[in-house]
């Protein structure tokens, strides 16, 4: 079976672990247990073109910082080696996390150009508290495929993962 390594990247507490848990195990937990290092899950998804095994690397959160060395630590670089695709995650209720996601995207594009990426604006169930302006969102979706997801309700989560899987296979 074809297998692909994908990583979830984003600032801390944006819901990376929750999104993986929702996608793989279909559950949600409102406790926050921060991820250190990386947590690995595997899941087989059925696409029209056949099954693909996704080896999902749920990374520790990045710091919301302007300093590049702090943004992508040496450990994170080691984890990101050989990745086939990336899910960037931001928390709609915290504007700073969106900036971090975009900076991470820039870094990935620099390190391995052409890596398929999608952006997940998470915590859509809290839309009333979102700090993103419509202008922000419009700009974003021009450069990157965006999904507004909720690990809590599950909305759009499968869609985002499957979209990435599809793109991964097409970019053989």
């Amino acid at each position, binding site marked *: *079976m*074809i*297998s*692909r*390594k994908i990583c979830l990247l984003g600032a*801390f*507490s944006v819901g990376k672990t929750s999104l993986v848990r929702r996608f793989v195990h279909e559950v949600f937990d409102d406790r*926050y247990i*921060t991820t*250190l*290092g*990386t947590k*690995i*899950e*595997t899941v087989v998804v059925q696409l029209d073109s056949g099954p693909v*095994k996704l*080896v999902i*690397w749920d990374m*520790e*959160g990045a*710091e919301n910082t302007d300093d590049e060395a*702090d943004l992508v*630590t*040496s*450990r994170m670089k*080691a*984890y990101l*080696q*050989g*990745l*086939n695709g990336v899910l960037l995650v931001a928390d709609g209720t915290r504007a700073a996390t969106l900036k971090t996601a975009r900076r991470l995207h820039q870094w990935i594009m620099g390190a391995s150009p052409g890596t398929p990426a999608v952006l997940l604006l998470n915590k859509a169930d809290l839309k009333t508290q979102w700090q993103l302006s419509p202008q922000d969102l419009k700009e974003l979706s021009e450069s990157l495929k965006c999904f507004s997801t909720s690990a809590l309700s599950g909305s759009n989560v499968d869609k985002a993962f499957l979209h990435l899987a599809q793109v991964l296979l097409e970019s*053989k």
Partner: protein
Amino acid sequence: MKKSRKTDGQPVDDLQLLRDLILGEEKDRLHKLDLRVSDLESRTSDVAEVLPAAMNRLVGDPASKPDFERPVVESIRGAIKRDTESFAEALFPVLGPAIRRAIADALSGLVQRINAALEHSFTIKGLKWRLEAARTGVPFPQIVLRHTMLYAVQEAFLIQRGSGLILASVHRDELLALDEDAVAAMLTAIQSFIQDSFGMAADEPLRSAELGERTVWVINGPAAALACVISGSPPRAVRAELMVLLETLHARYGNRLSEKPEGLSGDEGLRALMGEALREEVDASVRSSTSFKYKFLWIMGGLLLLGFLGYASINAWRDQQLSRQVVDLFQAEPGFVITAAEMDDGILNISGLRDPQAVPVAALLDSQQIPAGKVKTDFSPYQSLDREVIIQRLQRRFSLDPITTFNLEGDELTVSGTLTSGQFAGLQSLPDSHALIRSVNLDGARLNAEEASRVFREALDAPDSVSFQPAGAQMAVSGLADGSWFTAAREVAIEVPGWQLDFMPLQQNLSAQLNDLIENLNGRVFQYVFETRLTPESAASLDVAGSELVTAQDLASALGAHLNVTLEGSADGTGSRERNIEVSLSRSRHLLEELVARGMTEQGVTQTLAGWNESGIEPERRKVTLFIERSANP
């Protein structure tokens, strides 16, 4: 204004005085408060007084919890990033016990091997090893270890460097519980973590890890790593061999190792090469240990040791020996967790946890001939609720073959594959005793062939001449048997899980036997001296002929076949025609009576007359000829 007592008599002073009089107390308090607020130390102690209560309230309040947690997590996270090393050190006390456990396990294995070695030391092989030790100067235990080292590489996978994706994998058992992709990715992640946290060079990452009872060796190459899951303790030399294998893989596949993994997935050559990683070394002679012969040698050795060591230390050694043996025994047994073991006055006190599913303590001790009086146990019940653990424990408890499959869905356990009757009984009664399993579905399971044939043999009361041979889902009945057994056996209804009786081979044998008998009997002549007096030879042959006929008739009726038996009487040419007819008939009737007396059935037997030659005396025609054939219709 004149009321001022002061000499300079200023009105301000009066005002001040008035203030002091009216607000004196408050002013004083204000001043004290001022001091308290501006003095850092007293402020600190004030905050310290209320802080615990405040924190408790914050943490308990779901609304403010995230706000409170966020800065805490953020600062811990920052600290870890800035100073990974000291956090890695902080983690060490946690890792310590795990590592110690691993070492203790390794040591207990070592003790077992040394025990084996001590037994060997009183055998020829042991003497050889002693000589080798003397010759090479290597300590004896090391020589023994070298010779008894047992290991097997259970599975091996080739992991792409960086991505952690699997390029190829091989394994011994057909059914694999591991999620190889996840294990491979985790090994890769752990390598990265260790490299980063302990500042190791990139070419010196994780080499070996403990995975339950197995050891995982990771051998790193520039484009791919070879991970081997090993049971037992492999000698170091194996690592070098595996390294050579990895180099060969790199030499042969080069850049393809760095490309998308499915490019290599169908490569038979790669699989074959990987197969070489599945090395093993088994020294069977070491496994079977405590035979009688060795016991005698033990005693001899014990006496010798007595001379050297003295009685006390022998006792201590034996105590330790017993304690090791028992602890190992319980540790190896699923459903037991040993928390403490101590020797007290020659009695071993063991305490810990025991799953109610586990083997009874007495039976376990008995199985190793450990006297029950020597061991006192105190187990509290426990039950692991983990689905995997339950399945694994059941699988181990019933020591099921790898080809059996175990599946726990809700509270129904489904088992398929080949089982022993003990396993059947155990599994069937499982719902009575198991906390989680309400029903057991054994529809897909079958009894193992050996026991199935035994059950069939007993139920059918089969003679030794009948054999039962498994053939697919059928149990073929073959060999030889008498017709009545065959008839009866086919009527018996027995249900043996997963098996159907097939009588066809036996039926064919019996049919062939009947044909042989018919061929043998057909045309047999019984010679007479005169009238109904048989010659002595013919008279003597009656018993055999009778029993052959009985058998033939028996077989025919069992097979649903029909026999035509004809007794043809003859006479010599002397005498009148009437006389000849009479004599011929009386002879065939005589023979019929003789055969019926020997058990033959009269039914289907006809008597006829042969012609005779009028011309003269032909004594050889004083006879009855037996004709027998299978007939299509009754």
